[in-house]
């Protein structure tokens, strides 16, 4: 039996991209207005009595003081209870999880979860990915983000025969989906040959195996499930969630063919939701690199360990496949504005479950959708949220 104590009654985002002309506060306001405007029966912003803001690295956009007290003024809610949540790449999905607990506890009635991230205003050597992924503070240095994932690809290929073409198939699928998503940063098709011929970054990953650095913001509105009908006739409920940690430093990983934080978080979410992978109609998963989606689909139980490379190659995770993965274009095409990423994935799940995803709409059979992020140093933290239309 799904948990279902909290409902998502509104969700929205701003088109992702290189938003040099938009400041942090403007992006936040855009996402908030989009979420408010999405509520079927209308929504008075003054109803919000708590907000959780996901921003991974507020020091990078030039106004170092960003925190829980910045966003309320930007969106016209000065005075509201507001807390910033930082939990690496799952910051947005963890802010959602915390927001759900705030509503379910009865402490807050209407909660805004908003993710905002500025990635492109600084040069790459000053940027979040270079500075955030420095390795162990004592023993290893210079582990840029691709260095944290490429050794997994090497080992996965060694143990299971995963090929560069299987990695490329993930990029091809997600770029295709991005062409169908008006909010995506990249809206162009790529071919397997394009991916294989792209400049090398960290072998075996090339440029098109990597997600871009993207600016963006997204927001969702949560209420108690009992009040959902006040706002919409098509509520989406929070069936369950889970989070977990793992060793953050690569030398202590159990192996290099899976991300244990994902497996643990998914197990907790599935148990809470009372469902498993077989009940999912779609999933938005963390594809910061092509290899990451392959690890994800295995760690989330969509296929056996070692078989993840085949799913995209054989179309099983396409929009019309057995279990569509990243119909939004994923991080690879839609982009990865870190604090906003999870909230935007949840928005995609919300649209899909409400059959509002237009050209990228998946077939609904069971009424469950899964959202997943994994990240931090060495993929040391993961969050999984499961949404449903079933009450």
């Amino acid at each position, binding site marked *: 039996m799904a948990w279902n104590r909290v409902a998502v009654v509104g969700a929205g985002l701003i088109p992702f991209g290189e938003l040099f002309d938009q400041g942090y506060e403007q992006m936040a306001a855009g996402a908030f207005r989009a979420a408010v405007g999405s509520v079927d029966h209308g929504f008075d912003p003054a109803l919000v009595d708590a907000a959780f803001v996901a921003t991974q690295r507020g020091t990078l956009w030039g106004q170092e003081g960003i925190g829980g007290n910045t966003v309320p003024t930007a969106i016209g809610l000065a005075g509201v209870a507001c807390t910033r949540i930082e939990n690496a790449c799952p910051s947005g999905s963890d802010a959602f999880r915390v927001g759900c607990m705030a509503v379910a506890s009865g402490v807050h009635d209407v909660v805004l979860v908003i993710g905002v991230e500025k990635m492109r205003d600084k040069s790459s050597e000053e940027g979040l990915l270079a500075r955030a992924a420095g390795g162990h503070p004592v023993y290893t240095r210079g582990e840029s983000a691709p260095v944290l994932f490429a050794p997994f690809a090497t080992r996965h290929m060694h143990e299971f025969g995963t090929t560069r073409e299987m990695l490329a198939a993930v990029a091809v699928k997600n770029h295709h989906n991005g062409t169908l998503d008006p909010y995506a940063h990249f809206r162009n098709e790529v071919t397997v040959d394009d991916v294989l011929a792209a*400049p090398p*970054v960290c072998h075996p990953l090339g440029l098109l195996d990597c997600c871009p650095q993207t600016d963006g913001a997204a927001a969702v509105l949560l209420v108690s499930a009992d009040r959902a009908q006040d706002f919409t006739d098509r509520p989406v409920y929070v069936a369950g969630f889970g989070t977990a940690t793992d060793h953050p430093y690569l030398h202590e990983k159990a192996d290099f063919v899976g991300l244990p934080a994902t497996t643990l978080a998914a197990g907790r979410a599935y148990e809470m939701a009372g469902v498993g992978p077989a009940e999912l109609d779609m999933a938005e998963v963390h594809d910061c690199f092509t290899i990451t989606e392959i690890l994800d689909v295995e760690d989330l139980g969509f296929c056996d360990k070692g078989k993840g490379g085949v799913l995209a190659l054989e179309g099983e995770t396409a929009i019309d496949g057995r279990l569509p993965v990243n119909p939004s274009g994923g991080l690879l095409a839609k982009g990865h504005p870190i604090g906003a990423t999870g909230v935007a994935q949840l928005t995609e799940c919300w649209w899909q479950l409400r059959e509002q995803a237009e050209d990228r709409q998946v077939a609904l059979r069971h009424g469950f959708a899964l959202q997943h992020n994994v990240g931090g140093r060495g993929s040391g933290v993961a969050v999984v949220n499961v949404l449903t239309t079933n009450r």
Partner: protein
Amino acid sequence: MTATRFDLPVIEEETRPHWEAARDRRLLIRRCRACGVAHFYPRPFCPECWSEEVVWEEATGRATLYTHSTVHRNDLPPFGERVPYVAAVVELEEGPRMMTELVAAEPADVRIGMALEVDYRDLTDEVTVPVFRPVAGSVA
């Protein structure tokens, strides 16, 4: 004025013996006297059994390559000047793994499981870091 660089370790009280040994071309790890398991990086307690009976031990420096990636882009100074280089996870003969760099190897010749031995790179007068190189004759 020297440019900001990001390859220098932060040397703390707890880990100073490791770095002082590295300057002398010795690789120090830690072993737990209670459960017998060796670990890296050095901790004040055993990560296997939480015993505080952990002692320094000089490793043989022999290792095998567990996984790797040849880095072609890294914008963090001074790594950008070193590309392409081989980032590596190696498994020490004593058991623990280390994240390190594989030197003196052509990226095309690097294979999981190849035999390695420790080497050292002097970064400054004070700081030397362990790196690894293929054992002579192990490159196919």
